[in-house]
């Protein structure tokens, strides 16, 4: 299985390459990708150097152009496709049918991967994208149980990539409008759930207050782990009870599921976190490289090592990791 690692800047890309990534995914410095954060991502020159660095070491580079353009911004998405094609990346990761179609027409030789934002959860949906835009891979949303995943992998016309590790959200990928409710922006169109300009943290004697556009979304008591300031991970008062009404801050960790994922034919494992630092990318890539190698050598006796799990636990959002939807036996 290919290890697909995140990079939000050149040192992170180098970290991923140096520590064993099979591919690195990156984005431009604008709203054409779903991690449009202040100061994050690559200029064309940085991308060019990054691609050279990765290719010289046999590592592939994918570019995410995976937000949904609005009519007024369309030229930016067109330009992003052209720039990526000109830079010689190995694949585009896209979700919008307009972007996919444009890429298919303008750069047919450039491979297209259907982004997680495309939210394709069935072989039928994947076949549609394959037939119309000749996609070469699909990144599945994080909503499928293992049983459902097995069926999709079996019937999919293209290789399947799944998320292996990283922060989770409500996972209504490509369709989530929660943050628009408070900030007027959504990850689907603007590339960010909680624009930094709308985020405020106040340290008070009671703990840390987390506010989004002035709305209190959580209050962390002393010593309590904090989370990203997204609406879905806030705590709210519902019928007199205060708690996580939508989603808990937690991280996906599928290390223990590796043999099963390999056996069912999953082609690639994706690591979340383009917004994280080179230190995170190095730590996580090192662990996953070692785990994938160990699993490939002897899947039958593969067990995640405690020191691997300790590293992944330490960099996780929230105090816990989970198998996410993979272990929903009722699905």
């Amino acid at each position: 299985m290919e290890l697909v690692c995140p990079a939000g800047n050149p040192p992170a890309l180098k970290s991923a390459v140096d520590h064993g990534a099979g591919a690195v995914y990156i984005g431009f410095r604008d709203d054409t990708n779903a991690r449009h954060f202040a100061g994050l991502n690559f200029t064309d020159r940085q991308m060019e150097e990054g691609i050279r660095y990765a290719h010289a070491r046999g590592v592939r580079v994918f570019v995410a152009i995976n937000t949904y353009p609005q009519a007024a911004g369309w030229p930016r998405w067109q330009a992003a496709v052209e720039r990526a094609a000109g830079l010689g990346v190995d694949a585009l990761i896209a979700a919008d049918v307009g972007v996919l179609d444009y890429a298919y027409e303008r750069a047919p030789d450039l491979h297209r991967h259907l982004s997680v934002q495309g939210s394709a959860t069935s072989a039928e949906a994947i076949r549609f994208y394959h037939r119309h835009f000749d996609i070469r891979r699909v990144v599945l949303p994080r909503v499928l149980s293992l049983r459902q995943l097995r069926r999709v992998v079996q019937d999919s016309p293209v290789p399947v990539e799944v998320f292996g590790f990283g922060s989770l959200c409500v996972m209504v990928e490509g369709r989530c409008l929660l943050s628009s409710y408070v900030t007027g922006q959504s990850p689907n169109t603007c590339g960010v759930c909680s624009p930094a300009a709308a985020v405020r943290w106040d340290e008070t004697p009671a703990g840390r207050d987390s506010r989004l556009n002035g709305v209190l979304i959580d209050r962390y008591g002393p010593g309590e782990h904090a989370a990203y300031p997204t609406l879905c991970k806030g705590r709210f008062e519902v019928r007199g009870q205060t708690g996580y009404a939508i989603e808990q801050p937690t991280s996906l960790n599928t290390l223990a599921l590796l043999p099963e994922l390999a056996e069912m034919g999953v082609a690639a494992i994706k690591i979340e976190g383009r917004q994280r630092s080179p230190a995170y990318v190095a730590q996580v890539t090192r662990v996953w490289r070692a785990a994938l190698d160990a699993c490939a050598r002897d899947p039958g006796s593969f067990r995640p090592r405690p020191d691997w799990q300790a590293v992944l636990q330490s960099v996780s959002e929230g105090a816990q990791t989970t198998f996410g939807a993979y272990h929903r036996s009722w699905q």
Partner: protein
Amino acid sequence: MASFRGVDRVNRASGSPGLPSPGAVPFFLFGSLLSRRFARAIAGGELDFLHDRILRVVLQPPGFAFDVTLREGQLRVAAPGGHAGGNRERWDLRITGRARDFLRLATRLEDADTLFFQRRLKMEGDTELGLYLKNFLDAQEEAEQALARFAEDKLRGAVMLLERLENGTRLSRR
């Protein structure tokens, strides 16, 4: 530390530009060092987000603090209030943490979000400014000057060695 006065303010008061008062010398040197380390980024406008904005860094314990800003193409460091005419309450972004965690961040041994999740790093004020700063620092390649690279390498080694020694002590106490 509270008796340290900002370089700019002292210079203006004494009428001798470029000559910091003895108490402000460490801040002045630190600012010069930072300006040299990030000379290319400053010239390229990558640090413009700090222009006339005040970043306050608070080390806890002991509560030692300093202010950083970008002014006239130089990174300037001063005691709290030194960039705001002595107004200690004025800052745009305040980051509070332990000296060791700042060292781990500076030497790329730790991820800022990890420290934030674990409540080892506090960020107050203009979050967007904070994100610009974090992403600017994350995107820095190794220092270009051989001496700076050597120093950063040694610092990283020292931090790791200290932590190994501490861990060893902790283990042997069990």
